[in-house]
């Protein structure tokens, strides 16, 4: 995760520009560092060169589809929290997303507050994981 004074980095991928256009300022205002992309090929390239704490991705797009994109992110960066957003939400796609390591799954349309919450939960989860990884040392000390 980031050092304390670094912003959480978010990548948003959706081939409908309106989604990026609305999410970007909302996340920036909440203090996040945001990048947006409208095509999955560029996003695929981008995640090879930069690390993101959170990735928000659409599922159904031209070119590389969201599922493959999701799989690839989790390979490169297993600790990235991926939030899947889709207009074609079915139970199966939701299940598959989770199986592939998605942190959350939101059906479009969603409220701005819902997706902001989802990102906050990613952060909270990671803080917990961080403190848990600090834990064993304390335990050893305690039992010694």
């Amino acid at each position, binding site marked *: 995760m980031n050092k304390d004074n670094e912003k959480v980095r978010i990548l948003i991928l959706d081939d409908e520009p309106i989604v990026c256009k*609305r999410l*970007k*300022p909302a996340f*920036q*205002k909440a203090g996040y560092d945001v990048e947006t992309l409208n095509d999955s090929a560029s996003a695929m390239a981008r995640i090879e060169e930069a690390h993101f704490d959170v990735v928000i991705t659409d599922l159904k797009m031209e070119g590389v589809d969201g599922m493959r994109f999701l799989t690839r992110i989790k390979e490169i960066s297993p600790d990235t929290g991926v939030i899947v957003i889709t207009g074609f939400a079915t139970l199966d796609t939701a299940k598959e997303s989770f199986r592939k390591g998605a942190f959350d799954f939101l059906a479009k349309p969603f409220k*701005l507050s819902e997706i902001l919450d989802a990102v906050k939960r990613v952060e909270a989860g990671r803080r917990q994981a961080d403190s848990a990884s600090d834990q064993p040392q304390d335990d050893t000390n305690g039992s010694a």
Partner: protein
Amino acid sequence: MNLLNVLAFWRPKKPPVSFTTLFRKFKGLIERNNRILELMGDMGDKLGGEYVFDKQYILSSCEQLEDLVFKLISDLSVLNQDKNVELFKAYERIRHAIHEELSGRHAFDQVSLTIPLESLDQGTVDAAGSKLNNLGIIRNTLGHRVPDGFVATTKAFFAFLDHNGLRRTIHEAVTAWDGKDEAAFDQMCVEIREKILKADIPKPLAADIMGEADALVSRLRREGDKGPHLFAVRSSAWGEDEESSFAGQYESELGIRQEGLLDAYKMVVAGAYSPQAWRYRIIKGFHEEELAMGVGFQLMIAAECSGTLQTYPADPSQKEVMVVNCTPGLGAPLMGGVIKSDTFYIERLAPFAVRSTHTEIKDQLLELNPEGGTVWKNLSQDEGKTPCISKEQLVQLARAGLDIESFLKRPVEAEWCYDADGELYILQARPIRFELQADTLPPPPAPDVEDTLMAGQGIIVQQGVASGKVFVVENDEDLHDFPYGAILVSHFTSPRFSRIMSHARGIITDIGSPAGHMATIAREHRVPTIVNAGDATTRLQTGEEITLDAGNNVVYRGIVPGLRRYELTSQCVFEESYEYRLLRRLLKRITPLHLVDPKSDDFRPSNCTTFHDITRYIHEKAVSELIQLSERRELHETKPRRLNLHMSLGLTVIDVEDGMCKTDEDLELKHVLSVPLKSLLDGMCQPGMWCTRPVSVDLSSFMSSFTRTFSVAATSRIGRNLAVVSKEYLNLHLQLGYHYNIIDAFLSESENDNYIYFRFLGGVTDIERRSRRASFIAEVLERFDFRVEVRGDLVVGRIKKISLARGIEKMNMLGGLVGYTRQLDVVLQSDEDVQDHLAVFMQQISNGPGEQDEQGQRESSNTYTG
């Protein structure tokens, strides 16, 4: 008679379908009807700005809706054994219009060729184009002076192109261009422009333009204005002055005499095909069919001085100031940068102190030539030295600028002028596009925690950030003293705040609903507003400086520097996105309800112009069809019978199984065996519910207004109300006044099977009052543990898996609610009334149906027929 006919006569009749089967069909139809209403409500909700949606959502919602409405008509066809040709035709018309919109071809059936400036509002932006429509709103909604005029609509633009076959010519030319050869592109532009300039303006359009101009000039002459009456003719295209600012791309024609207006129209249209404008569209990814151009015709003002105002300077090092540039005479040379001007920096907060001044010696000015066009005039040295604007005028300008900024939700650049009488005119206003966009700037640091006065309290009505001094309003008199630019804090929401809405930078109320009238006006003015914040009036004092962040629902102590600027430059103005505009256009084909009165001659399939109309018509038709079917004895054992009650409910009951006593007597309440119906009617009969007379002395004051309104407004309208019942089941359709209740309930000993579904829709009063009634009903239902959905004035409440005893209690309450609310919209004059009535209702219901005494009986029989 030929043999075939004889044989036909002997053909055996189809066996009648049983009533139970038809009833099942009917229930299916009602279910579909509900899904349609819910989907329409969902789509409407998306316009509020809270949701992120995309084009895919629009497409799939329309597709679903079309499918549902088609099947709804088919359902009716099974039920009424009719082909319903007219309904299918209406359906096809609406569907076609929707598809035209979706494919970018705009259906303009309700738009005229010209619209006067005074008729423009937020609904006319597609017809008028954004530039002129903004001016219309600045004039009509924000109340600033704008030169008189009118706009030739985007419909007129297409009519003009089509009349001359130009749309095709343009399409062919641009398709043939290889996308690379710049010289060929320029040549294409020249050719298209020539064709436009030589084209004929269709007669109706020419007549409308000349007629509007004539009317305007004649009015001025009557008022003693001798002129010269010269016009400015300007482009007003879709998207111009919005996200992609086309500033400077399109042409304006200035100082045009009446006889030259038609040529000027063609000049402005041709301007859209100049190489620079066309190339700009191509670079920005605009589709050719997205070019829809309104053209504005406005009288020119003989300006004493003119200039520009920027509510934020382009230079970000200049903090929290506005910039005014001005020059004597007309402003065109200033915009063109060919003349010296005075510059003033003014603080953004009232009283708008001048931070710095820079005056120049001006040597000439441009003025109107009475013969048409403009002329230069030399200035003496003395004239040139005098600053051309006063301190008072700067303050007036600053206020106007901030009003417009609040509305456009962007830093604004306005062009303005003062005439010889010292009147300020806003000539143009567009959002500023900074070199440094906010997404490259860091957000301003959040204030310290101790500076947070309120957080997360209340409901956001209109997003935005506002800084200013608090002004607590306790009564109407206080409104007279409301200072410009203050933040209004009040216990209640009130439609009376509309008076000061354009002065207020923000609004916070202790209680109130986001569906109220005030909320509507606040949205119209785009004033950042939070309602229902609990204790704002006790936490905030008049005179205290605060910053209201209605996007994040926080109130900070003091002015938080940079927050508003950040908000204005970073915010995605969702109302301006293509998807938002498309959805709004589509909903015009879907949600407005024109068929309200089933007894009117206009209540016909051929008059259905929206999907809502069709849905409404079918619902009405299906209920009456079911009643007719139930009257056909061969379909079932029991015949429908009238139930006589103390109140005139006009209820027909069809007993499917053991829902009523088998008796030959006239049916009364005592004969009802159906548990849900019995408990509902018990609730309806309790004192103070159906009856509209006061039951408690304490409440007489407002109850008197209740009865008074009824005597005026009582509409003794009762539809064909129908209950289908069994011992444990009730399906009830009630039309009371102009609104509908549907209740579907199953109540038995088996808790798991029990459910109650309640639906309420409609009303005859204005939407605010109807919404108030809807919020009243929703609140009551919630207090009784229903899962509630409200969309406009549609309220749906559901509850399931409840014990028999609780089910009976709920049905009692619903009976009371149906009775109590049947004309409540008429009396809900303010949001406060909702709370008052809520208190009365809850008190009445807690008395329970058991307490119906003689007096209750008497009152119930002495009643208005809703």
